[in-house]
């Protein structure tokens, strides 16, 4: 890790977020300075990337992520994304980005109806995103999931569009939740917003089972550095 300036990355805490601190820690261990941001804030600090972490924002009322999209900070997040800023959503963050219309599709209850908490293997399908630039196509990453509503869904027309654009960034090799087309992670058409159900922040140290999540978060740190113009 360099001793140079650390790129700032905002990590948004909603009422009910519970992976925000792990995310801050993981980003810090990969050379970034994580900046905690509260959902009621209306502006983002000067950051090179934004992360919406996992949890159960607003108690998952109505549908997961459906209420969080009205949080004051989400206007600033949408503007940041529209300006090309990299935005990553993990788990509940993915659900929020879908409900906010920043990502295609929606997350539905697991086909088993069970909460699943275990390691999964996901295949990197696209590397031209700020989230997978450190990977090679076909890389298999071991990253845990922990969710009850993680089955990504799109109807056939939307799926065809998303596939044609190469927006499916990550796919399960052993689909745990019934996601359409084995989708574990998907990006927007502009490729600067991505959501994934697995938790890269829980897989940044081999001592904790896997270090593969670091590839995703380190890609994001690199993208944040580039956006801020911080010398590497």
């Amino acid at each position, binding site marked *: 890790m360099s001793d140079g300036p650390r790129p700032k990355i905002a990590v948004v805490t909603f009422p009910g977020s519970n992976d925000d601190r792990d995310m801050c820690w993981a980003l810090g261990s990969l050379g970034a300075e994580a900046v905690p941001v509260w959902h009621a804030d209306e502006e983002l600090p000067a950051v090179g990337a934004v992360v919406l972490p996992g949890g159960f924002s607003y108690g998952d009322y109505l549908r997961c992520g459906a209420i969080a999209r009205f949080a004051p900070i989400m206007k600033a997040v949408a503007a940041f994304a529209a300006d090309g800023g990299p935005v990553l959503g993990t788990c509940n963050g993915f659900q929020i980005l879908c409900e906010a219309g920043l990502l295609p*599709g929606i997350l539905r209850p697991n086909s088993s109806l069970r909460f699943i908490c275990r390691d999964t293997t996901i295949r990197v399908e696209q590397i031209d995103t700020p989230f997978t630039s450190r990977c090679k196509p076909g890389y298999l990453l071991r990253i845990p999931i922990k969710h009850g509503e993680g089955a990504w*869904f799109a109807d056939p027309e939307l799926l065809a569009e998303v596939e044609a654009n190469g927006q499916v960034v990550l796919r399960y090799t052993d689909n745990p939740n*019934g996601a359409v087309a084995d989708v574990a992670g998907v990006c927007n058409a502009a490729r600067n917003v991505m959501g994934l159900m697995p938790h890269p922040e829980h897989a940044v140290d081999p001592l904790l089972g896997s270090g593969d999540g670091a590839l995703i978060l380190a890609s994001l740190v690199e993208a944040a550095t580039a956006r801020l113009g911080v010398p590497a």
Partner: protein
Amino acid sequence: MKATVLVRPKAGILDPQGEAVQSGLGHLGFVVRKAHVGRLVELELDTTDREQARAAVAKMCDQLIANPLIESYEITLEGDA
């Protein structure tokens, strides 16, 4: 005016909740060919204009109450036959 919105999983979409209810009923000895689980939302509106109310509730459904990708909805206003 009171409005009631019935939100249903769209036809043809996997409905694990419905399947679980169907299988549970089966365990109790009931023969049920299919079960679907939706959501009922009751609203109280200030308007008395039915057209206006119906249009407003439809907008609410499109923007928040239902997710059009996976759910369909049915609006009933107080006094609807």
